[in-house]
C-alpha cells in the first residue's frame, strides 16, 4: 500500500542519516522515543532487541539496518498479532451502543461530537446521551455539539443519575430506530473508586437493556499525557472492559507514545485519533503513520522534510 511504501522510504531516510549503526544512533533513537512518551521500559526493550538483531545478523552498515528497524518499530505496536482491526464493531441491523470513558478533560465530549458527524455523513442515524450530569456546562456542551452536527441529544437535568440518562438514551434510540447511540460520561480520575463504580454501573445498565452491548467502550486518552495513561488504561479496563482507544489532541506537539506500551501490555488497540477541535478532526488510526511520527524528529533537520 501507499502508506507502507512511504513508511519504509521514510525509514530509509532515517537510516541514511547515520552512516554506521553505532552507539550514537541508538542513543538518538532512545532519546527521541523517550521524548515521545513511549516509556523507558518499552524503549529499553526495543533498543536491546535492535542491538541483538544487529549482532545476530552481523550488520555494520545502516542500509542493511532499515528492514530490521522498520519491522521492529511497527512490531512494537502490533506485537504478535498480524492484523489488528481498528474498525468499530457495528451491528448491521440493530442498535450499536458506544460508551465513552476517560479522565477529566481528555476530549470525550468533543470526540462524541466528531464521531456523530462522521457517522451521520455515512448515512447513519445517531443519538447522543448526555451522561455527564456532573461537570458545569457538560450537558450544554453536548447539546451544542448536537446542534452543530444536527443529532438528537437525550438528557436530564444536571445532577441526575448518569445511569438513568443512559437508560433514557437507549429507550429513545430504540424507539427512533437509531443505528448508533453515543454515550457521554463525566471525566473521572481512575483512582477514585466511587466514581469508577458509578461507571461500571452505567455499563451494567447498558448490558442489561441490550444484550451484547455496549459494542464498544472507547477510552479517550490525551496525547499530551505521559506514563499515567498506562494506569488509566488498566483501571478503566478493569471497570468497563475497554475495547479501544481514542488518542486525542495529536495535532499538538505531543506524540502519545504511551499507546505502544498499552498496546503491548494490555492489547488495547487505538481506533481513532483526534486532530483538532473541528467536526472533521477525527481520523481512524494508522499504525505506520503513527510509529513514523514518533521518531520523525530525528529527521527534523532534513531539508526534504
Amino acid at each position, binding site marked *: 500500500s501507499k502508506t507502507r511504501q512511504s513508511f519504509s522510504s521514510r525509514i530509509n531516510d532515517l537510516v541514511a542519516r547515520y552512516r554506521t549503526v553505532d552507539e550514537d544512533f541508538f542513543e538518538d533513537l532512545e*532519546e527521541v522515543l*523517550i*521524548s*515521545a*512518551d513511549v*516509556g*523507558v*521500559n518499552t524503549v529499553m526493550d526495543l533498543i536491546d532487541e535492535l542491538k541483538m538483531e544487529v549482532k545476530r545478523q552481523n550488520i555494520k552498515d545502516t542500509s542493511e539496518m532499515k528492514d530490521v528497524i522498520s519491522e521492529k518499530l511497527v512490531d512494537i505496536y502490533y506485537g504478535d498479532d498480524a492484523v489488528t482491526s481498528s474498525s468499530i464493531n457495528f451491528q448491521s441491523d440493530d442498535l450499536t451502543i458506544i460508551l465513552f470513558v476517560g*479522565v*477529566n*478533560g*481528555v*476530549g470525550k465530549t468533543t470526540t462524541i*461530537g466528531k464521531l456523530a458527524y462522521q457517522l451521520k455523513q455515512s448515512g447513519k442515524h445517531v443519538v447522543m446521551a448526555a451522561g455527564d450530569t*456532573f*461537570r*458545569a*456546562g*457538560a450537558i*450544554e*456542551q453536548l*447539546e*451544542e*455539539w448536537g446542534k*452543530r452536527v444536527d443529532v438528537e441529544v437525550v438528557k436530564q437535568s*444536571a445532577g441526575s443519575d448518569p445511569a438513568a440518562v443512559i437508560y433514557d438514551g437507549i429507550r429513545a434510540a430504540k424507539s427512533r430506530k437509531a443505528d448508533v447511540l453515543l454515550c457521554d460520561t463525566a471525566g473521572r*480520575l*481512575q*483512582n*477514585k473508586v466511587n466514581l469508577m463504580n458509578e461507571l461500571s454501573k452505567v455499563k451494567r445498565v447498558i448490558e442489561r437493556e441490550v444484550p451484547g452491548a455496549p459494542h464498544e467502550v472507547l477510552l479517550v486518552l*490525551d496525547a*499530551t*499525557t*505521559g*506514563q*499515567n*495513561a*498506562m*494506569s488509566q488504561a488498566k483501571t478503566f479496563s478493569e471497570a468497563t472492559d475497554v475495547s479501544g482507544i481514542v488518542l486525542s*489532541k495529536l*495535532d*499538538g*506537539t*505531543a*506524540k502519545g507514545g*504511551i499507546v505502544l506500551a498499552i498496546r503491548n501490555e494490555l492489547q488495547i488497540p487505538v481506533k481513532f485519533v483526534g486532530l483538532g*477541535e473541528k467536526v472533521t478532526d477525527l481520523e481512524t488510526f494508522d499504525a505506520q503513520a503513527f510509529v513514523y511520527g514518533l521518531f520523525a524528529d530525528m529527521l527534523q533537520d532534513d531539508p526534504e522534510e
Partner: protein
Amino acid sequence: MAFEGLADRLQNTIQKIKGKGKVTEQDVKEMTREVRLALLEADVNFKVVKDFVKKVKERAVGQEVMDSLTPGQQVIKVVKEELTALMGGDQSKIAVSDRPPTVIMMVGLQGAGKTTTTGKLANLLRKKHNRKPLLVAADIYRPAAINQLETLGKQLSMPVFSMGTEVNPVDIAKKGVEQAKENHDEYVIIDTAGRLHVDTDLMDELAQIKDAVKPDEIFLVVDSMTGQDAVNVAENFNDQLDISGVILTKLDGDTRGGAALSIKAVTDKPIKFAGTGEKLDEIEAFHPERMASRILGMGDVLSLIEKA
C-alpha cells in the same frame, strides 16, 4: 504502577553501600542510573533528567558524601535536596495591584483545567481576603464554555461578565476589566480558551489580551499528568506571554507529576497552586518538597532509609 519499583531498586544499592561503609564511583553510578529511570518514569523531561543526574553525580562523589558516616543515606539526601531546589521555594501568593483591580489571566492547553481553576481561585480570594472577584468569560470557541463559567459563578454566587461568542476575546477582556473598575471590584479573573502552544493565531490573541489589560498575573494552567511535552508547552507559553506562575491541576490522581519539575526547570517560574479535585474548594498552595517526594516516590524511599 511502574514506578513502585524505585524503593525496591534502591534497596539493593543501599544494602550494598551500607555493607561497605564507603561509597564508590560504581555505587554512585548504579544509584544515579536508578534515579534516572525513576525520573523518566515519572515523566520528568529527559533533558532535565540528564542535567539533574549530572549534578547529583558530581555531589555524590564529593567530600560531603565520602566523609559521611552514612554515605548511602547521604546520597539519597543529595538527590532529594537537588530535587527540591530544582522545584523552587513556596510561592503561593497572588500578586496584588496597587491600583485595583488586580487582573489575573488564565492560559493553557485544552482541557487543562483553566475554567475550573478560575472558579477555584475566585473562591480562594473570597475566603482568604473576603473579596468578590469578577469572572470574565473570554472563551468564545469551546461549545458552552460561557455556560460552564456562568454555572460556576452561580455556584459561588459571583458575577460573571460575558458578551456572548460573537465578540472578540480581546474586547471582552477589556470591557470586563473596565466594568470591574466601575464596580470597584478588586480582582478580575479572565478565563481564556484552551489552545495549542503552536497555534500562532490563538497565541497572538493571548498576547493582545495581555497588551490590552496588563494583567498582574498570567497563570499557565498545566495538567499534572502531562508527559515529556510539558517543556515545549511551558517554554512556548512563557516565551510568548512571559507568564508569572504555574498552576498544576488534577494532582488528586495517581500521577507522579514529573511535569512539575520540567516546567520549573525550563521557565524558572514558580508553581503557585495545585488543583486537587473537581470541586471549587479543592485548591492548595503548592509544596515543592512534597512534590519532590512524590516524583521520586520518596515517601517509600525515606522509610527505607530509616529501616536500613
